[in-house]
């Protein structure tokens, strides 16, 4: 049992502006992602993962958890978020949990994309997946506040789709990509697209009903032999 990262240093105001893993019930997506990573922990430890990238790190909870699986000095933990306040919380969560997290305020993998070509060993993305209209999602991304962490536009996929096109370029040969998705996001279509565009195989690592929704953690890899 790997302990959940300590988030006691975050204020209520931080949680209001960033993302409170315990507060978004029934969307307990952060905890499901932690459970998915814990399920794969033994495989992850064996793989000598060097470069980890979390997109939309929010509180920094997930990367801190990954750091406790892999070891604080065994990998580089890069964390991006468009919300400046999230980057500050990510840094603080790293410090609190003694995992050196490296926050960068930017959109998706922006300034890292060209240098990290075929270099990232693990990508984590808990995207804004709630279906909304396009304008709401677009505005939420522009103002880079709390709504940007959930408003996902058409099918809840507008932000996710922008990133999926990049995943094949970023992943190393034995790299893996974990994505949080709702049934409403059309999971078969996501999996098919990643297979046909980038030859990435996928599996549902874990799924859980949360109110009227079913949350899934998907894992994508270049070949079946790696899993």
């Amino acid at each position, binding site marked *: 049992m790997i302990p959940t990262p300590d988030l006691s240093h975050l204020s209520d105001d931080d949680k209001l502006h960033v993302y409170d893993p315990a507060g978004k019930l029934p969307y307990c997506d952060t905890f499901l992602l932690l459970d998915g990573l814990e399920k794969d922990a033994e495989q992850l430890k064996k793989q*000598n993962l*060097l*470069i980890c990238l979390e997109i939309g790190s929010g509180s920094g909870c997930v990367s801190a958890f990954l750091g406790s699986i892999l070891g*604080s*000095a*065994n*990998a*580089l933990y*890069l964390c991006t978020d*468009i919300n*400046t306040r999230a*980057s*500050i919380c990510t*840094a603080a969560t790293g410090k609190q949990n003694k995992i*050196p997290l*490296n*926050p*960068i*305020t*930017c*959109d998706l993998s*922006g*300034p*890292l*994309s*060209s*240098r*990290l070509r075929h*270099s990232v060993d693990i990508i984590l993305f808990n995207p804004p997946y709630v279906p909304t209209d396009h304008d709401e999602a677009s505005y939420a991304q*522009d103002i*880079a506040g709390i709504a940007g962490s959930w408003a996902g536009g058409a099918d809840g996929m507008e932000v996710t789709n922008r990133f999926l096109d990049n995943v094949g370029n970023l992943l190393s040969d034995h790299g893996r990509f974990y994505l949080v998705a709702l049934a409403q996001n059309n999971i078969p279509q996501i999996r098919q697209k990643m297979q046909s565009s980038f030859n990435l195989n996928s599996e549902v690592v874990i799924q859980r009903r949360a109110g009227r929704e079913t949350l899934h953690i998907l894992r994508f890899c270049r070949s079946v032999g790696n899993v």
Partner: protein
Amino acid sequence: MVRLITHNLLACHVKGCTSNNFPLIFQDVQIELQEAEFNPDFVTHILPRLEWGALVDAAKQVGDTSLPPERPEMMDDDLLRQLHHVLMEIHVVEGAMICPNCKHSYPISNGIPNMLLAEHEIG
């Protein structure tokens, strides 16, 4: 915290700025040294994913001239320790990173680089 390992992986991403956009040049930096656990295996394995010349230049810009200009073929323990220090223990806490090509300035505040772009700069 912008450590030199992170700096080595960042390039300017302004729309149309696709050549000579790496490495970003540090400007008006404030540095903090923070001890980090030394893992020689990590340093050895991460090196092929980094650009040596960019690392040497960045280290000079923050006042560390300990690295040889060419990447040595053999890494001894002293060099690995020195690399560990340069990559993992030098933290740029304030300042900016400037694109050598388009001169875009990315500010660093409280150790966090702000690399958001305005709408007209997004590719």
